């Protein structure tokens, strides 16, 4: 055993306190550390980039289409109503079987949602026909010629034989005229599904389609983004400034003044913002400025409360008390200690307020108190889209995606910021 060890290794060399206390991590300032942790948070960073894209597009989007095609948010073109982003002249409609055929005693049983057409026969013989490429039809998208498909049926025909006849007739038309796009009939449940063959092409002049007045949705979306973001940013900014002043005074002075100021906030907060908002907007004429004012009037209380809480907490913190005992001036304490240290929660609060403002704006537009026509905001676009959602889903879905993405991104970014700015989570 003794050969394993070198006797020289058994000599006192004393403590190595430096090594024991060595801190291996580099020291970072509060903001550096917060930035580092935010950057690590992939979800928050993704949200940040999404927001950046959305905001950039709101700025340049309308300029692009104006220069390329001359679209503005208000230019109407009634010849180009309700276009979709992907245009198509293919159509697919499903007709209820008893709209097309007469039944004798073989009434389909809808209640069980199970219909057997096996033995269905027509009550009376006659003609069945369909018009294809009818310019008067609502989903007409540019066929050059109208075709008519007609078959004769007799009372011995069954469902299947009728469909076969229809398909044969379609094939005959196609053989006769190569311009005819082709048609197919199929039975599906208790309906007859008719599909015409057609091309699909990207709507090259209206990238996101058009609305009911033929206005370009791409332009309107980003124009709406400008208004929505503008309203949100300006109202959050002013709200925060006012909230910081109000909450700061209340928290810093404390005592009786704090009591009174906070009681006022408490009373105002009892009533949900929406009531005030609606009430105020009925008094003012709708527009960007009144909406912003309304959102500011109803939004500052939360910020004021948060700031007051922070200031109260910091005021009694040891380092501020220490600074006071050392004779630091009020100004110095406020600007060097209170504001920088309260900044974290304030920034998080601002981030979380923005989606709330966008939401509030959308809500107001929805109940008809938003920006007046022909201006667009995301809320008013969604409102218009919701009305004709069933025919043209894209008119709702496009602004809906924009709103949801923005809310999504701001909420996630806010969460990330909160985690990054919370000193308790520093590792």
């Amino acid at each position: 055993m003794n050969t394993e060890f070198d006797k020289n290794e058994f000599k006192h060399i004393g403590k190595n306190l430096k090594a024991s206390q060595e801190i291996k991590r580099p020291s970072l300032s509060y903001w550096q550390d917060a930035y580092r942790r935010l950057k690590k948070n992939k979800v928050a960073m993704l949200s940040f980039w999404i927001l950046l894209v959305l905001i950039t597009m709101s700025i340049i989007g309308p300029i692009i289409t104006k220069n390329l095609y001359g679209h503005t948010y208000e230019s109407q073109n009634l010849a180009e109503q309700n276009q979709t982003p992907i245009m198509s002249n293919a159509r697919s409609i499903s007709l209820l079987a008893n709209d097309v055929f007469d039944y004798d005693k073989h009434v389909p049983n809808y209640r069980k949602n199970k219909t057997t057409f096996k033995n269905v026969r027509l009550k009376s013989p006659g003609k069945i026909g369909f018009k294809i490429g009818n310019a008067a039809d609502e989903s007409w998208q540019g066929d050059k010629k109208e075709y008519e498909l007609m078959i004769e049926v007799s009372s011995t025909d069954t469902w299947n034989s009728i469909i076969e006849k229809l398909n044969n007739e379609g094939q005959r038309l196609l053989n006769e005229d190569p311009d005819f796009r082709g048609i197919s009939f199929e039975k599906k449940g208790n309906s007859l599904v008719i599909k015409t063959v057609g091309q699909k092409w990207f709507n090259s002049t209206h990238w996101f389609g058009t609305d009911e007045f033929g206005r370009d949705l791409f332009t309107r979306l980003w124009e709406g983004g400008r208004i929505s973001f503008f309203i949100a940013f300006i109202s959050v900014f002013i709200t925060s400034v006012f909230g910081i002043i109000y909450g700061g005074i209340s928290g810093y002075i404390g005592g009786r003044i704090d009591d009174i100021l906070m009681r006022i906030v408490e009373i105002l907060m009892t009533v949900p913002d929406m009531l005030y908002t609606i009430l105020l907007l009925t008094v003012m004429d709708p527009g960007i400025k009144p909406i912003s004012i309304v959102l500011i009037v109803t939004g500052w209380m939360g910020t004021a409360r948060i700031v007051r809480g922070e200031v109260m907490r910091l005021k009694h913190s040891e380092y501020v008390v220490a600074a006071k005992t050392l004779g630091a001036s009020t100004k110095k304490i406020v600007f060097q200690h209170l504001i920088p240290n309260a900044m974290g929660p304030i920034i998080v609060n601002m981030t979380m307020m923005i989606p709330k403002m966008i939401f509030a704006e959308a809500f107001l537009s929805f109940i008809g108190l938003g920006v007046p026509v022909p201006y667009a905001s995301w809320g008013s676009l969604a409102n218009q889209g919701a009305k004709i959602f069933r025919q043209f889903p894209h008119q709702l879905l496009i602004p809906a995606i924009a709103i949801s993405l923005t809310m999504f991104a701001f909420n996630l970014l806010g969460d990330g910021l909160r985690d990054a700015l919370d000193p308790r989570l520093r590792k």
Partner: protein
Amino acid sequence: MLKYILKRLLMAFATLWVISTLTFILMHALPNDPFTDPKLKPEVRQALRVKYGLDKPVPEQYVIYMKNLLKGDLGTSIKYPGRSVTDIIAESFPKSFALGWRALVIAVVFGLILGVIAALNHQKTLDYLSIIIAIVGVSIPSIILGPILAYFFGVKLGWFPVTVDKTQISLFLPSLTLAMSSLATISRLMRTTTLEVLGQDYISTAKAKGLSKLQIVLRHVLRNAVMPIITILGPLFAALITGSIVVEKIFAVAGLGEYFVSTITEQDYPMIMGITIFYAALIILSILVVDILYGFIDPRLRISGKGGK
């Protein structure tokens, strides 16, 4: 405790008074009144003004309005002549309430379940799934969610009616739309509070007793984690009430919210004021009830007799 309740009641009345006064001032700060339609003859306009008491000086109107308010009389509607605001509220509010309480139940039940499941599976698939649901819930406003739900489940799949009629099932889609954001809020909060409770020492104590995971959750976690949720039920109920304004419009419910929206565009002052005050009173009451209830539920507050903050 009694003193606390009395104090809160007093506070509630003060708030209500502030709100009704504010509403009154706002309504009368308008440059025009409901009868500025140029097509009206001056005599007719004057007669209408007299009928609705608008010819009197504003302070006198205020006193009259407040006196009537105390009696529960909110005046007569202008848009629906001959119908008192109270009647209209009494008729339409139950329809809103039918949506409201269903939405509250959906939000609370599913929100709590989702939150607990997320916390118990912290940083696993189920947790992320419920976070996603929660974030989607707060990120998609009801003005978008409503039409989309109506389209897919109502029109495309045909599972539920798109407009509200007498049937129970027709209330499902609007209630769900209304519940969604509250559901998300509750599940998020519940997740946080459950995680907090799970980290408490008394959970270790319960584990050291040999209780199974389920027993720990049922007996020790749930009750403590739900406590903070109770405090937000009041504001949540308020959010549901205002939220129903949108939902009623989407699903064509002739509830109070729908009336509210239409009176705004019609500038029907007695209606606007009446409904605002009614909403405010409802919200204040619900917050009050929840706060008092909380004092009874939490043993720490119950014994010491100090409620609230």
